[in-house]
């Protein structure tokens, strides 16, 4: 069965060009880049090129890039570094819709380390309550950390504006840009955030490689203490092949940025329009005009997400849901709940996240599979009768 992969906010296919770039460094070029011989230095030279390419995607200086093992490590390193830099400040500001990678860290800091954490709410469209965010900033605030774009709805936050407000008050600012990177332009010379995290496997590099951008001048403290690697900012022998792969992926992502905002956006809009037209009782979650170009979160009244996903899965379609039943928890996703998406559609919300590998034929396949699947589930739902919610 042919796989239709529309779960790119979860992870992405490793690009063929990336694999090709990596292979020699998984094979014959296995040297340690720190070694004092030409064999190892060959790898070191390639790492430098990769660092340049990665920096190039977000317009950073190469020295501002720290390679980590994943987005979660980058997030943790950023937050711990901030609270180490300002040990006397015991307040953190974030949003209610952050990824668990960082949200659970705040729960930990709040519960066990005595931090006061402000979780800024969002409105029904998933947009931040900026007044509350700005009013919460104080001399006691160690860091403001707001995701650049939300993983479930694709809603984009006004990072430049929030950074400016934090900066005016002398507060550090970090953004989890795991979903935004490679999908919308990011320029850290223009949006001068202090720290920014992203992850390789969301942009067609392999899993197990992340990036933390740290603005020059910030007194960063290591999260993983060890050797001299990454200029002493992150111990551990470099994941050479993955860093090299990520370098290529960043180069490709930069080239593909226009495609993401034309072809991919058109495919997403096409899928969205067809589903809204063909399936009554369906609604899009999140602000339509402030979304990542590849993401569609759509709720179907009176049906449940896991059931929808399993019916899609039978036709080779990969998507994900904000439904409780897929995660083992019982409440729908914290993002949809924070947005006060009504239960009638929150439980039946599905996220399609596209990449430039998707085609219009695939979108048609999704529509022709989903229409009868929703009908089948509604035919057995006690909350649906004669074409409407009861």
């Amino acid at each position: 069965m042919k796989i239709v992969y529309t779960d790119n906010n979860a992870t992405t296919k490793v690009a063929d060009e990336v694999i090709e770039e990596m292979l020699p460094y998984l094979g014959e070029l296995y040297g340690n880049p720190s070694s004092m011989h030409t064999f190892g230095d060959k790898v070191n030279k390639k790492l430098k090129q990769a660092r340049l390419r990665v920096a190039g995607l977000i317009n950073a200086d190469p020295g501002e890039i720290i390679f980590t093992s994943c987005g979660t490590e980058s997030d943790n390193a950023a937050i711990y570094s901030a609270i180490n830099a300002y040990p006397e400040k015991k307040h953190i500001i974030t949003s209610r819709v952050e990824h668990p990678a960082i949200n659970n860290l705040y729960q930990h800091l709040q519960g066990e380390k005595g931090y006061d954490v402000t979780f800024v709410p969002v409105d029904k469209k998933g947009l931040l309550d900026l007044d509350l965010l700005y009013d919460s900033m104080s001399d006691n605030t160690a860091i403001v950390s707001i995701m650049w774009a939300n993983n479930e709805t694709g809603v984009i936050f006004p990072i430049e504006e929030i950074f400016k407000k934090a900066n005016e008050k002398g507060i550090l600012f970090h953004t989890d840009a795991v979903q935004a990177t490679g999908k919308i332009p990011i320029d850290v010379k223009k949006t001068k955030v202090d720290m920014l995290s992203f992850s390789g496997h969301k942009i067609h590099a392999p899993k197990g490689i992340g990036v933390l951008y740290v603005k020059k001048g910030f007194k960063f403290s290591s999260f993983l203490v060890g050797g001299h690697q990454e200029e002493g900012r992150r111990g551990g022998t470099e994941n050479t092949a993955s860093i090299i792969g990520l370098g290529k992926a960043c180069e490709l992502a930069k080239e593909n940025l226009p495609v993401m905002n034309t072809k991919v956006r058109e495919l997403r809009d096409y899928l969205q329009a067809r589903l809204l037209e063909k399936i009554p009782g369906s609604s899009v979650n999140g602000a339509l005009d402030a979304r990542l170009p590849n993401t569609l979160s759509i709720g179907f009244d009176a049906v449940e997400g896991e059931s929808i996903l399993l019916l899609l899965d039978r036709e080779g379609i990969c998507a994900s849901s904000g439904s409780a039943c897929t995660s083992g928890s019982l409440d729908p996703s914290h993002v949809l709940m924070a947005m006060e998406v009504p239960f009638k559609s929150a439980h039946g919300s599905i996220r399609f996240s596209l990449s430039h590998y998707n085609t219009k034929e695939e979108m048609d396949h999704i529509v022709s599979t989903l229409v009868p699947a929703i009908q089948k589930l509604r035919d057995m739902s006690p909350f649906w009768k004669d074409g409407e919610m009861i």
Partner: protein
Amino acid sequence: MWDYTDQVKDHFLNPRNVGELEGANAIGETGSLNCGDALKLYLKVNENERIMDATFMTFGCASAVASSSALTEIIKGMTLDEAAKITNDDISDYLGGLPKAKMHCSVMGQSALKKAIANYRGVQILEKPGELVCECFEVTDLEIIEAVKANGLETTEDVTDYLKAGGGCGQCLDRIEEVIESVRAKG
């Protein structure tokens, strides 16, 4: 992805006895839209209290649909007294087992059946006895005690898997822990 048995997959993809039942004389409803799963069970019971037909309408995940479908297959032809003895384990066993975190789906089947039988007999199920512990899913201490004893549950996660209690806002988790402790203390 859940490790569902072939029986669960089959009953989800090809559910038996779906729909409203014309001439039903017993109906049991449980769950709600907010909870994420709900089951409406229809029975046609003859003068000898034998279940001549059973159908269901379910909103929920694959195991909720499969549990409902299995339930209707199990009870068809039984007398109400026989059906009253059906437990969630019978439903789960019929399906070759359910993942632990999905056991509440089989509990939902048992609960709808109890309500349908009470509905037929004209017994009103009064407000649940005991003290309300989980407000999100309306679970009482007596229900938790019963589930802990019957299924040998040990942790709050076990209780959530079986009864959903504690799986919403989580404010009652400490209280659930106390209830488990009290059962343990009494042996």
